[in-house]
């Protein structure tokens, strides 16, 4: 057919008219409107009645008061509680992301037992009855065989009813092996024991300090209570307190300080003694305190004057002599100076020598148990509980030495040394561990030298996990009895170390249990009941809520009404009554022993020959590195100078990087005596030359795709180093090298 002009026009016009008459254009327009305005594939959150529930968040170590906004039955937002003593309305990024932990897909929905190889993450669902009887049976058999001491229990918290209940269970059962994951709490507790002669907890009246000498404490990175510390930092800006941050890396804390003083990693204790040297030499110390309320000053003086002259100290620490002298004078002449330690968040305690030295510095200026100073405070107790009942097998088990050697003749001042457990398990001394209960802890991620911990845990035939989320340690367990999350349960949270008032917060259920999980407290009570005898009699409560209420009966009215109890008017003991040591005075000699040996710092593995650099871990306020993995919101705010896709960036000083032939963002292999990993290099002027800095908290193998396999776990590359004087982990890092990938 021939198409002429006329028929072409007719066809075109006909087509246009025809199209216009069909519903097609209108349908397209309608669809367009729907597509651009109605989005059925995006969620449409249901509205409902708005309510607010006050509770305490346990995700980070701070334990801040929060208020949770609910819409109907849904929790939609976590905000800081304005009338809570520690945070006063503020909130940290982790606790603000708490709903992602409550509703997230990494939760363990019900009790499970392992069916595949250990760590293969293959599970079978079991009933609660089966789960509890399975554990009770195992524990019963071990106790029957007369070996109750071979059962160990690990928690991340030391105080409160849950660690208290677990410890009580272990005691009644007959095991001395209740432990908490290591932290600066252990070191400070030990310091108070040696120098004050008290079993207490440390408090810092930082609000009233006007000169702060921080030996690497990440006051903004999560040292103590994160929000409280950040509030205090703002308070210091208003009161014009002077903050000096001593650490090798320009951390957020160093960035906010009045002066950043870089120091060779691991030599903080030496610098402290250099400062003490100047204070003693120039007689700048508090005569009243030193002469009338202390003993052992001569020993301390001799130890300091014999080896820690500013010249000597400067060589070892890399800090100028003049800076040392200035720091000493400023510190001694300030009205309310305070010195603190515990590197970063304080998750690795450090050697006892460093703590004793720093505490001695406070004592030299008489700033002990005084406003703006360091306080020895009573420990939070569950005073409503009676003593547990011990039968013959419990008594026999409890006199056995602990697995970690704490309290032994080698480490008489230690209460727990979980860092020593892997070594003990591999050696099978003093005895093998037959079962391990893990509560609110993830040692297979958070302990330095993860591989050694993994090998050690392989030696334990029966591992029970109470985890709410599938973390690395839960994956290694034989049976998981999942706990309720922090927004579904009752619990008490005593104030974090460092807070200078006795304080207990109350965790209240905000929402109904979302899944088939159970409060670990109730599980422990059921286990005790199943074991029967004196164990059951020691834990007689019908449920955890009753046990909690009874333990805190003296404060319960306040807890119920306000959500917390605090002794607002608390004042520490005055000098005349504060030191129940042998001399009745503050002990500069730290309960005897060789002070020189105490101050000798532990050296990490490796040698300068094969490793020309030093690798130091750092804590970031934007990365969770404790028992809780970072939720998606946290990973979202991690810098692209730390994480790019799944690749980790390590920080290196440009001078060091260029000498090794690396430019910004280049790939490198980071090697340490423990292993190697491919990383990228980020150049920063905020790090001492000769170092490589790696963040803690990344490189998870568990959790979901928002977190797993991103970056590298610093604990894969850095191990623990035992401080011979205390048994504490004294590692500041490790020798390392960077080579071309």
């Amino acid at each position, binding site marked *: 057919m021939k198409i002429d002009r006329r028929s072409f026009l007719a066809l075109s016009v006909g087509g246009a008219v025809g199209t216009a008459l069909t519903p097609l254009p209108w349908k397209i327009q309608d669809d367009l409107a729907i597509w651009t305005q109605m989005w059925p594939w995006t969620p449409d959150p249901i509205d409902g009645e708005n309510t607010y529930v006050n509770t305490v968040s346990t995700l980070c170590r701070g334990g801040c008061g929060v208020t949770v906004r609910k819409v109907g039955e849904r929790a939609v937002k976590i905000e800081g509680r304005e009338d809570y003593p520690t945070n006063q309305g503020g909130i940290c990024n982790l606790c603000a992301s708490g709903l992602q932990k409550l509703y997230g897909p990494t939760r363990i929905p019900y009790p499970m037992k392992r069916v595949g190889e250990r760590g293969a993450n293959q599970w079978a669902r079991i009933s609660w009855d089966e789960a509890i009887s399975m554990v009770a049976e195992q524990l019963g058999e071990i106790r029957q065989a007369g070996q109750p001491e071979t059962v160990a229990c690990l928690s991340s918290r030391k105080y409160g009813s849950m660690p208290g209940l677990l410890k009580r269970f272990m005691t009644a059962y007959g095991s001395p092996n209740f432990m908490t994951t290591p932290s600066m709490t252990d070191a400070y507790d030990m310091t108070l024991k040696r120098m004050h002669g008290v079993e207490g907890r440390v408090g810092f009246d930082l609000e009233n300090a006007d000169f702060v000498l921080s030996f690497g404490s990440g006051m903004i990175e999560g040292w103590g209570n994160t929000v409280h510390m950040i509030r205090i930092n703002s308070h210091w800006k208003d009161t014009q307190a002077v903050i000096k941050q001593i650490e090798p890396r320009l951390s957020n804390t160093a960035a906010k300080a009045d002066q950043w003083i870089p120091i060779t990693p691991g030599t903080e204790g030496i610098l402290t003694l250099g400062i003490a040297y100047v204070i003693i030499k120039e007689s700048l110390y508090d005569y009243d305190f030193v002469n009338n309320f202390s003993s052992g000053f001569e020993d301390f003086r001799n130890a300091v004057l014999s080896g820690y002259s500013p010249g000597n100290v400067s060589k070892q620490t890399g800090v100028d002599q003049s800076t040392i002298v200035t720091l000493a004078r400023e510190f001694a002449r300030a009205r309310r100076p305070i010195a603190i330690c515990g590197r970063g968040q304080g998750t690795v305690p450090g050697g006892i020598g460093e703590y004793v030295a720093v505490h001695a510095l406070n004592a030299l200026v008489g700033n002990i148990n005084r406003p703006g100073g360091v306080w020895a405070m009573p420990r939070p107790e569950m005073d409503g509980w009676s003593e547990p009942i011990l039968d013959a097998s419990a008594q026999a088990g409890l006199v056995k030495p602990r697995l970690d050697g704490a309290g032994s003749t080698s480490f008489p001042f230690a209460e727990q040394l979980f860092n020593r457990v892997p070594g003990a398990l591999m050696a099978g001394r003093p005895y093998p561990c037959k079962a391990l209960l893990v509560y609110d802890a993830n040692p297979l991620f958070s302990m330095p030298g993860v591989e050694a911990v993994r090998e050690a845990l392989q030696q334990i035939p029966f591992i029970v996990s109470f985890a709410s989320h599938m973390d690395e340690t839960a994956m290694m367990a034989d049976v998981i009895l999942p706990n309720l999350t922090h927004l579904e349960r009752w619990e008490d949270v005593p104030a974090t170390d460092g807070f200078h008032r006795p304080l207990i917060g109350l965790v209240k259920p905000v929402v109904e249990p979302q899944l088939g999980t159970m409060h670990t407290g109730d599980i422990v009570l059921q286990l005790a009941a199943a074991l029967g005898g004196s164990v059951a009699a020691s834990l007689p409560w019908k449920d955890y809520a009753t046990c909690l209420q009874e333990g805190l009966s003296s404060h319960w009215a306040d807890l119920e009404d306000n959500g917390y109890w605090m002794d607002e008017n608390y004042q520490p003991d005055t000098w005349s009554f504060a030191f129940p040591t042998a001399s009745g005075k503050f002990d500069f000699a730290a309960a005897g022993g060789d002070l020189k040996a105490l101050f000798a710092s532990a050296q990490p593995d490796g040698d300068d020959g094969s490793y020309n650099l030093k690798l130091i871990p750092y804590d970031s*306020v934007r990365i969770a590195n404790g028992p809780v993995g970072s939720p998606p919101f946290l990973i979202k705010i991690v810098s692209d100078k730390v994480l*790019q896709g799944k690749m980790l960036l390590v920080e290196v000083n440009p001078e060091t990087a260029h000498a090794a032939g690396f430019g910004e963002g280049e790939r490198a292999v980071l090697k340490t005596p423990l292993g190697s990993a491919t990383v990228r290099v980020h150049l920063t002027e905020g790090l001492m030359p000769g170092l490589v800095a790696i963040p803690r908290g990344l490189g998870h193998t568990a959790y979901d795709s928002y977190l797993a396999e991103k970056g590298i776990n610093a604990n894969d590359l850095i191990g623990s180093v035992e401080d011979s004087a205390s048994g504490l982990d004294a590692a500041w890092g490790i020798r390392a090298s960077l080579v071309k990938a």
Partner: protein
Amino acid sequence: MKQTGNSDKPKRFGMVIDLDKCTGCGACMVACMAENNVPFREDESKKRVSITWLQVYRLTNGKPYPDAEVCYLPRPCQHCAGKHEGHSPCVSVCPATATDYDQQTGIVSQIYTRCFGCRYCMGACPYHARHFNWWDPVWPEGMEKYLNPDVSARMRGIVEKCNFCFQRYQKGLEKAHMEGRRELEEHEYQTACTQACPAGAIIFGDLNNPKHQVHQIAKPNLKKGGRPQNPKAFRLLEELETNTKVYYLSSKQWVQDAIHKPDLLDQTEAQH
């Protein structure tokens, strides 16, 4: 949005952010994301496509070790008024009236249902405060339970940004009206970031109200395009005469100098 502010005296809501106090902790960013149903993806390390209404920048003084210094700078939408109220860079270029300047509150709105994703506003914004949804938001199974019903979830193909938690203003007004009041107290309307900041570094309120802290601290000179009369206070890229409502305080000279560089937010590290 225009009809919501029914009070007679127009307000100019704004912020003062104390950079001496900001620690760069990022609690404000998380609080903002939680309040405003901001989505997240598996990989959020490509910061140019990562949606963060409030971004904390990390400024450095450019000096070598050991004299390096760092300052953190939170950057919400600056809610520019421009040379005359309403002449915001983004509002001027939007062909869909999807972003608008509310004369009653001074808030620059973003109306998601009108936006068709031309991204002119993103090009016009000198502060990189606007973000484009390259993908539909997907929450992992179960997590949609925490979504805030006061804020609609967005979709692929549209632009979003900080609106000073306008839903909180609406809620506050509703409550006030129920109680027979027409005005809100200062504390009754606070943004999520202000409320969350552990450092108390962010202060929010009505710049027109002499009783509000923001007014007292920034002391804006209305005759000179809102320039601060407090010598410690400054605004980002003041030279552009965008007349922003976010004032910053810093005692450090290098910080005060840095914020005048037009490429400030391009050059600095995204966050830390």
